[in-house]
Every structure is written in C-alpha cells, then in structure tokens.
C-alpha cells in the first residue's frame, strides 16, 4: 500500500479490519479510507504564530483496550472523583483507553427517546442519525488533523435529545487514558432538537503512564430551533500528549449555546472552538480558561460567526502563562452580510506570571454588515500590584495573594460547570498548575 503516514505504520487493510471489527457500516468505512489516503497528503493547519510542524500528531497506538467496570466504585480514583456522589445513577458514559467501559442512561430519559451512547454503538444502532450529523459542522478533509481523525476514530460519544425534551440533570462523558503511547481519536456529537435543552459535560484526562501520545478530538454540537445547550469541558492531558481539540457548533433560530471550557492540558495543544450562529435570534456565550506551564506551547482559536439576524455572542477568554510557556490566543468575531442587528463582543485577557513566558492575544473583528454592534478587548498583563497590595494589607502572604488573584481570574469557567466533581477537579487543577 502506497499511502503511509509518518510514524504511523498503518495501511488501508488495517483500517478495513479495524472498521469491520467494529461492525461499521459502509459509509463510515469509506470515509475512513478516503480520509486515510488524504491524511498523508493534506497539510497541517497553520495556527497563527505557532509552528506545529514537528509536533507529534501521528506517533501513537490507536487500538488500545479499556477495562470494563461493573460498578462505579471499580473506576480509577481520578475518574471516580469526577462523578457526583449524589448522582451515582446519573447519565454517564466512561471511556477507558478510548473504549467504552461504563454506561448509564436513566430510564426516564430512555423513555423520552433520549439517546446517549458511545459512538461505535450509535453508528450501529442509529446509523442514519449519526450520518445526518457526522462531520457537518466541519469537513473531514479540512487539513491533515481532521483527516487523521476521520481515518482513525477509535472512540467518542453520541447524545441525542428529541424535540421538546428538557433534561435537568447534567449528562456526563469521561475519557481516561493510561495505556502507554495511546492515542485518543474521539468524535462526539451532541444534538438538541427543536425546543429541547440539555447540559453536557465532557472530561478528558490521561495518566503520565501514557508517556508520549496523542489526542485528536472533535466535538460537534447542534442546537436546534429554540433549543438550549450548555456544554462544559475540562481537558487535562499529561505533558507527553499532543492534543488537537476541535469543538464546533451550529445554532438554529432562537437557539442558545453556552460553552464553558477549562483547557488544562499539560502538553502541546492546538484548540479550535467555533460557533456558527446560523439562525435568526440565536446566541452563544463562550467562556474559556487555560493555563500554560512548563515549556508548553499552545494555540487557542475561538471563532464566532454571525449569519442570522439579531444574533448575539459573548466570548471571554482568559489565559495564565507561567514558567516558559508560550500561547497564542486568537478571537475572531465574524458578522456576515445580512446579519443585521447582530451583537458580538469578545474579551481576551492573558495574565503573565513569569518573564520567560509568552502570551499573545489577537482580537479580530470581520464585519460585513452596517447595523450591528461589535466590540473587542484584549490585554496581556501581569498581576495588578494594587490588588496584590490590597490582599496583602489584610495579612495574606504575597504567594497566597497571587494565587487568589490568579484563581479568581480563572473562576468564570469553574463557576459555570454544573457537576460538582468536575468543578472541583478544575479548581484543583488550577491550584496545582498555578502553585
């Protein structure tokens, strides 16, 4: 076989085998094969001011095995901590080394027609639905990383909420990697049909036993007419894992979406978060926090497109940079011609904690319509000496005062996460990464 990806000793036959082992339908296998062929040819994405050519996106094992668990108590500690103790019987899906190992959906939700399962099962049991939404917010042949993803998908989740179903309790997915050199290629689809609502929280974590590995994640979110989705996430891959994480959403008429993302990876990261406000009156509220530490390099793209009339977007990006970390933050608000009465506002703030760290915030407004409101603010700065003085004047030591200020700076996302265990994990991650 001629097609080969650098460092990825695979051929089309391996892919066919993997696919048939998973009982995948023809259409899905075909995308895998086409994507595999293109993956070798397509260029890497070109994130602003970040060279990623020599990052390891391809050297990993993708056919790793998870260990099924009968009870949540058998889960590894870091995973168990993410679950709310009070919600033992909640709707949760747990993946270990990219395989589903525990799944629960409450009877009530099942009866209402809600589907929540791993992607492989969804493809088999609800193939048409998956096909309807698979790679619809973005194209799989966009660049090398999307193609690698489409070729080698080995995990993911599928959440479908039918018309007019309101789900109160958050739905949770957890991905835990500990197999050496493993690569997680997880594809997630979240759909809320007209008039429904849901809160979904995904957590990614890896143990240092992975060593050098990769994560290539794509989550697609569809907010139907008048539907409402709150999407929370905490990413925490260990330092050897190179991540490409793409979260893309489309919002229909009068739908609303909230993103609350805690991007706490310890390794190199390229992140794309896009929202397409397609329908009139649709809205999005995006809040993203991150910490760069060690010698980490990261690039965060946050993109909001206003296509519908009277669409509203709020984007808040906050990043802390310490040690010799290096991050680029791009925020793009695009208002299309015809999107009259659109209102888009973005704020990016980067807090520098060391002189060796680098952080860049690039605010971009692209506006093709007159009757709109658009605003941006971007700043890169240090801890405010006046705040520090104020806290210290109450007897708080300089170190703790700084920590309080930094934690406060990242609080907006912690505040929004609806699951106590995940909230706590993010707080602890922040504390640890900042400390």
């Amino acid at each position, binding site marked *: 076989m001629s097609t080969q990806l650098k460092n990825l000793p695979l051929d089309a036959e391996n892919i066919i085998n993997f696919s048939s082992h998973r009982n995948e339908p023809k259409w899905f296998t075909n995308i895998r094969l086409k994507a595999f062929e293109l993956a070798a040819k397509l260029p890497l994405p070109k994130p602003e001011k970040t060279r990623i050519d020599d990052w390891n996106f391809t050297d990993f094992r993708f056919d790793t095995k998870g260990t099924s668990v009968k009870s949540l108590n058998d889960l590894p500690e870091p995973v168990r901590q993410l679950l709310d103790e009070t919600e033992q019987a909640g709707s949760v899906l747990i993946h270990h080394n990219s395989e589903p190992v525990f799944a629960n959906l409450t009877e009530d939700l099942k009866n209402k027609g809600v589907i929540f399962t791993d992607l492989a099962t969804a493809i088999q049991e609800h193939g048409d639905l998956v096909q309807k939404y698979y790679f619809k917010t973005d194209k799989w042949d966009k660049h090398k990383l999307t193609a690698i993803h489409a070729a080698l998908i080995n995990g993911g989740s599928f959440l479908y909420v039918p018309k007019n179903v309101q789900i109160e309790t958050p739905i949770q997915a957890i991905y835990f990697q500990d197999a050496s050199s493993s690569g997680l290629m997880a594809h997630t689809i979240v759909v809320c049909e007209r008039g429904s609502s849901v809160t979904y929280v995904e957590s990614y974590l890896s143990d240092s036993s992975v060593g050098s590995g990769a994560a290539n994640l794509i989550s697609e979110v569809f907010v139907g007419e008048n539907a409402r989705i709150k999407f929370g996430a905490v990413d925490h891959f260990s330092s050897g894992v190179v991540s490409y994480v793409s979260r893309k959403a489309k919002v229909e008429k009068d739908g609303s979406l909230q993103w609350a993302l805690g991007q706490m990876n310890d390794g190199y990261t390229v992140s794309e978060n896009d929202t397409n406000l397609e329908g009139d009156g649709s809205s999005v509220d995006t809040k993203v926090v991150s910490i760069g530490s060690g010698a980490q390099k990261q690039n965060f793209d946050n993109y909001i497109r206003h296509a519908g009339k009277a669409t509203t977007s709020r984007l808040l990006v906050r990043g802390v940079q310490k040690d010799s970390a290096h991050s680029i933050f791009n925020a793009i608000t695009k208002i299309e011609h015809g999107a009259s009465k659109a209102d888009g506002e973005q704020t990016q703030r980067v807090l520098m904690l060391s002189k060796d760290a680098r952080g860049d915030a690039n605010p971009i407004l692209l506006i093709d319509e007159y009757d709109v409101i658009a605003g941006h603010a971007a700043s890169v700065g240090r801890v405010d000496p006046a705040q520090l003085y104020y806290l210290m004047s109450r007897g708080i030591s300089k170190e*703790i005062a700084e920590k309080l200020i930094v934690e406060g700076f990242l609080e907006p996302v912690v505040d929004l996460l609806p699951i106590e265990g995940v909230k706590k994990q993010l707080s602890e991650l922040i504390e640890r990464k900042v400390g």
Partner: protein
Amino acid sequence: MTAPELKIEDLHVSVEGKSIVKGFNLDIKGGEIHALMGPNGTGKSTVASAIMGHPKYEVTQGSVTLDGRNILEMAVDERARAGLFLAMQYPSEVSGVTNADFLRTAINGRRGEGNEIPLMKFIKTMDKKMQLLEMDQSFAERYVNEGFSGGEKKRNEILQLMMLEPEFAILDEIDSGLDIDALKWVAKGVNAMRSDHFGCLIITHYQRLLNYIKPDKVHVMMNGRIVTTGGPELALRLEDEGYDGMKAELGIKDDETVEA
C-alpha cells in the same frame, strides 16, 4: 498585656520622587480614637499608605513603630499580621474571589497553619458582623468589591476591620459615599471595636462622622504635616470656618511648588 501604641515620628514620604509628607508626628495608644482632617491633597492618604507599606510610597525619613517594633522594615502582609489595618479610600476589586474566601484566607493568614478558624465559627461570626452592618448575606458570596456601590465598598472595609480585629486601624474617608443610615451602621461597627486594645485613626472631611464616633483628639494636616491638634471642638470649628481662617491664623502659605 500593655496597651498597644502606634508611634509615628518625623515621617517623610515621597511619591514618584515628589516629597508629600514632611515631618508628620503622631502617637496613638490603645483605647484612643484620633481624627485627622485637612484640605484635599495635603497628604493624609499618603501617610496612611506609607504606614501600611504601599510600594509606591517611599519613606525617606522618620520612623513608625507598633508596640516598639519598627514596622517600616516589614512587608505589607507582616504589618497587617503585626496588628495594623487600613480601610482604604479606594479599595481594590478582586474578581473571582468571594468575600468569604478572602476573609477566611486573611484570618487564617494571621492565625497561622494548624490554627485555622473552624469553618462554622467563621460563618457564624461573619453572619453576625454583616447583620450589624446591615449587609445582605449575599455579600459573603460576592466577589471582593466587584460591582459594589461606593457605600457598599466602605461597609465592606468595616466588615473586614471587624473580622480581622486589628490593634490599630486607619480609616481613610470611610464616611465618603455613605448614606445617613449607613454612616450610623459603620459608626456602630467601629464603636463596637472600642477597647483598650484597639486604637484608631479616622481620616475624614466631615464633622458628621465624629458625632457618632467620638474622637479623643482631632489633628489638622496641611502641607504634609500636622499643624494643629485639639479636641472634638476643633472639627466643629473647621466645619464652620473652613481651612482659610486657620491658615491665616497659623501663618501657613499654600505649598511651595516643587521644582521638577
């Protein structure tokens, strides 16, 4: 325990190379409340900031001791733990940090590791003090001073004062922006602190606050130093006459311009 004493001798302070405070002397003992008045820009807040250790304010001469200890050698947080408190004219906002977390951290900073205040006790104490200041309970969970009105910020300063129970407090224009009722609650808070183990310097422009918190002494500051000292009647006189009469009487000219 001997009564605490804050002693300021011949204090000179510069801000950005400009000399602002020029020979300020003051001695306050536990149990005493002093008021410091004076025209805008004479250096009242500068004295307060220098005592607390604000990094912008450079002490070029003189000494400040608390119970005989030289506080000018201490870092800001050490001064606070030594027993000093400054209710600031313009308190900072700290987003994302709740008032309760902030106060608990501050209290525990003073008490030291292993001697932290029990959570329930903290909550009860805070509830009680907030009630006394007529502050809504929601202020405990709100971020420090963020979105507080001017008067709410001032009340929050007094809440901190009451929670931290310092030996000495400097209250810098704690009455500005307070409505008449709030002024009474704040005064009630300060009066509740009164004891032989607590001394206080109140910086104010208005005599009204001194009706509620009776000072032992009133000092008037001009051009970087105290120019006259009296009892509560001095504040009344100033309210009537303003500073001009006093300037003429004491033969004080407006501050000479400092050459660049």
